[in-house]
């Protein structure tokens, strides 16, 4: 059980973590998500007593970490795969850690076997790949057979076999009644591993809920409906019927329709009464990635922009027409890219804390009438996010997307694998 109360950490003028309170409970894998620089690692370091919080406190089993009588026997942690002395062999590295907490040397060989490094145990860890380094770090975390485990990005650099192994390891550790706290940027992996999620952005808590609730609160489940390609009038007929019945219909690039707000049997009934044949009627649950992106898009500190390659181009002679620029790839440099929240959610289940130390003036999602804060008729208003973004978003909308951008590019987003989960 990890418990943080009002945890705050300032580095000079920068606030890395602000008033963070959460609990990580035993018996489940708790995922710890957040964009780069959102304070995940700082929080982990504070849990482990490496950094002292500016205010607030964090305890493990009721004790601050630095008061634990034998910390490695109660808490195991993988913070950084490269946090080893490269000149020391894997076995000696683990042996020195084992001796520090009175763990017998045979346990070292045991964990080396668990992580599959027994063949390179005598090799200096300098030559290890990132994946081998991760395995060594996991071995160090498991050394003391602890009841609380913290892993910061444990699957980075691991091969597919290693990823599967880590996933199963986390689950089995949690099933034994241990507290498992894992941070990761791999959403697909998190969706498979975690039971509970703690999401932070700009050092503040955005969500603390089960993964199921997180996804359903932050994205719309929808039905994909496909009418015969050969008869476009059927598609229009169905769209009209569904809209009339109160559903929202978004056309997808390949001609299918994305319907929200209506249950599947109702869609089928409406199609039947409108005398429209259906080629496809399938339920789709949004992915964790989509839900996460939607929640954190206002809290992203480091956002990529479209590479204009202007620095590489020759100066155009005066009067020359610049070459036509490519449309950006979906999601790149597009603050308002991810589709709006479903209208039934009332817009903002997780508004970014507005009175935070950052202010984040006008960040997307901050104010209620944000770029998509009032999706009265998302079916029409959000077909072209480009057209909307420059109007109300302070983040620069790429010039490459003129107001009259054709729908295909935004529609490409809608065909992203929503059902990847």
């Amino acid at each position: 059980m990890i418990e943080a109360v009002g945890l705050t950490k300032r580095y000079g003028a920068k606030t890395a973590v602000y008033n963070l309170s959460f609990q990580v409970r035993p018996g489940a894998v708790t995922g710890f998500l957040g964009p780069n620089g959102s304070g995940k690692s700082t929080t982990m370091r504070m849990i482990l007593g490496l950094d002292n919080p500016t205010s607030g406190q964090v305890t493990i089993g009721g004790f601050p970490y630095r008061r634990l009588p034998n910390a490695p026997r109660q808490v195991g942690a993988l913070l950084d795969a490269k946090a080893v002395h490269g000149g020391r062999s894997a076995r000696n590295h683990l042996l020195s850690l084992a001796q520090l907490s009175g763990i017998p040397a045979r346990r070292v060989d045991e964990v080396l076997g668990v992580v599959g490094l027994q063949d390179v145990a005598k090799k200096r860890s300098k030559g290890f790949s990132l994946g081998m380094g991760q395995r060594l770090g996991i071995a160090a975390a498991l050394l003391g057979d602890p009841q609380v485990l913290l892993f910061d990005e444990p699957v980075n650099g691991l091969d597919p076999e290693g990823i599967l192994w880590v996933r199963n390891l986390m689950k089995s550790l949690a099933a034994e009644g241990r507290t498992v706290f894992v941070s990761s940027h791999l959403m697909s992996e998190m969706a498979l591993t975690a039971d509970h999620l703690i999401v932070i952005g700009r050092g503040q808590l955005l969500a603390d809920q089960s993964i199921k609730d997180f996804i359903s609160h932050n994205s719309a489940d929808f039905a994909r409906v496909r009418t015969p390609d050969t008869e476009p009038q059927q598609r229009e007929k169905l769209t009209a019927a569904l809209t009339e019945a109160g559903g929202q219909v978004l056309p997808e690039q390949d001609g299918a329709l994305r319907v929200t707000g209506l249950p599947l049997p109702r869609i089928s009934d409406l199609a039947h009464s409108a005398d429209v044949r259906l080629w496809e009627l399938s339920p789709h649950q949004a992915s964790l990635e989509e839900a996460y992106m939607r929640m954190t898009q206002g809290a992203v500190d480091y956002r990529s922009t479209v590479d204009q390659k202007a620095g590489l181009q020759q100066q155009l002679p005066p009067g020359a027409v610049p070459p036509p620029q490519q449309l950006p790839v979906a999601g790149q440099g597009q603050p308002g890219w991810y589709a709006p929240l479903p209208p039934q959610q009332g817009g903002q289940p997780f508004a970014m804390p507005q009175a935070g130390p950052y202010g984040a003036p006008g960040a997307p999602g901050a104010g209620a009438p944000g770029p998509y804060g009032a999706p009265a008729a998302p079916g029409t208003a959000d077909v072209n996010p480009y057209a909307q973004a420059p109007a109300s978003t302070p983040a620069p909308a790429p010039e490459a997307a003129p107001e009259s951008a054709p729908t295909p590019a935004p529609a490409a987003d809608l065909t992203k694998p929503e059902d990847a989960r």
Partner: protein
Amino acid sequence: MSTPQPPMPQQTAAAPDWQAAPGASYTSPIPVTRTHLGHALHSEWTKIKSVRSTMWTLGTFLLLVIGIGFLVAVQTTDEDFGDVPFTVPAFIGLLLGQLCLLTLGVLVVSSEYGTGMIRTTFTASPQRHRVLAAKLIIFFAVAFTVSAFAIGLVGLFTSSLHSSDASEVPWTGTVFMGALYVSLLGMLSLAVGSMLRHSAGAITTMLGVVLLPSILPAFLMMSDTLRTIGEKMQEYAAISSLARVFRLDSESGNGGAQLGLLAGVTAAAIVAAFVLLERRDV
């Protein structure tokens, strides 16, 4: 996990109760013992002997002290040792060799900061003072043993080359004093390394500490007002302190005052290192 699990926690885990009592969570079947300094000493001993930099610095130290010592010793005659001890040939090697111990002292702690190992170490032992204490003890033991061995060996070799009544000064005391002096210098380096957390910065600082008091007086002596400072500095500089320890100048004492000053400075640096260690973030 490869350790056998008791059935109890697994049953409770089947129905995860969020507000469960602490007893419902996993408890290791192996009893948790309280850790103490002995564990940290054990760990630091494993650490210091399992990196190559230890072998390199100590190997170079031995080579310099014993090698130069033997070379000097074979060139000496009985008359050279009228009022100096038989360990004097080790003095010249020690002037260079102390830089090796100084480097090792810095590396013992700063290499952990440089590689990030320190976070692993302090996660494994949140009692940071214990880790630093163990490092200091292990380093001192290693440095003192190795330097005493080297100086002693040179002393034995020199005395075997010359008649026993060639030198009137007993040399066993200089073995311990010399070893103590360079080991304290290494301890000071370790404390500085712990405070600066940066190998190159700490080694440079220590080179300054060792060399500057020998160089600066040359400039300070030019001014009448600073002359006394310059003289004191020269008296307590590392090189002249070692010279006194080896009784190169019989009128200027046996180096006890110099050793005392170094011990005082080292103790102060160690206290500062402990205070900073507990306060700072890693």
